[in-house]
């Protein structure tokens, strides 16, 4: 793959992941607003999300979208505001992507496991 194609597909991936995130954030916030109406407890959260395959799927998509979206933006910021080279910013982007995936899925799978 040429560098031009790779950069363009990365850019496209960031836009598409932003669209997915827009939906995910709205659903996430809407559920929070509805759920806190009668006060919120960890027991209630586990009862709703724990062991639920649809919520597991939803938050898995959420985590993947963040892991694709955020590192690309961070790389662009590093390129514009620092003198770091292209190779360095690529590795930082990859590391942040892995970090978000690990931390995100640890939370998602952990919460699912509590109710399973």
């Amino acid at each position, binding site marked *: 793959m*040429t560098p*031009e194609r790779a*950069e*363009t597909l990365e*850019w496209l991936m960031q836009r598409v992941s932003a669209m997915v995130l827009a939906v995910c954030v709205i659903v996430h916030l809407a559920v929070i607003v509805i759920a806190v109406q009668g006060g919120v407890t960890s027991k209630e959260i586990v009862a709703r999300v724990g062991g639920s395959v649809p919520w597991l799927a939803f938050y898995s998509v959420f985590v993947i979208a963040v892991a694709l979206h955020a590192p690309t933006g961070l790389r662009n910021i590093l390129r*514009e505001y620092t003198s770091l080279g292209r190779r360095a910013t690529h590795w930082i982007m990859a590391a942040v992507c892995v970090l978000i995936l690990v931390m995100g899925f640890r939370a998602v799978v952990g919460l699912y496991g509590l109710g399973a």
Partner: protein
Amino acid sequence: MSKDSLTVEIWRGREEGRFDTFEVPRMASQTVLDIVTYVQRNLDPGLSYRFACRVGVCGSCAMTVNGKPRWTCRTHVDKVADEGTLRIQPLKNMPVIRDLAVDMTEFFEKWTKAKAHFVPTTTRHDDFAQVSPSDPKRKEATAGIECINCGVCYSACDTVAWLGDYLGPAALNRAWTLHNDVRDGGQSDRIKAIAGTGGCQACHSHQSCFELCPKHLNPTASIAGLKRATAKAALKGEI
């Protein structure tokens, strides 16, 4: 300052320098270029600046006026001297040669890098190409064609300031007009040249170029068109 005169601060030197202050007589319909010319001819012959046509055609006389890039020959003092003073500096994002004259070499080199030149596909022996003014691609080209290469958009662009290899709004706008030119034969090379690092994807759509373009062009919209074109080319594996 009185109503009959204007206090003008003008940058002197290169990257390092100072502002010199002048009192310039006010006249009706006076332009910023008239002010600079008055200073150079009457008060300080050593002042360096660049101009040619004086009527908004050549794109030579752009300068930073009260913080914003302007074509000075068509910028009336009344419109920009907010508090009765003028501060005139060279364009930003270009090396200063001296005083108000900047080195535009890199600006034009980026046009070359973007392959923002026409590549003919016919010879003088062929018939004229027939392009309808109502053709959608022709309309896109027409919307961006009147660029005078003044450098105002390039000077106003934050991304140019942040990312040294960014091609800039002017070169990309020209690439977009050529992208929509059915007679042009350089499409595949050009789309590759404007994709990737420093290309159209680097644009943040701040729209300073659109806000300040003296010809009222919209380079941001042209760049958005190029983003769509490069995305399609990348998906098809054409770049």
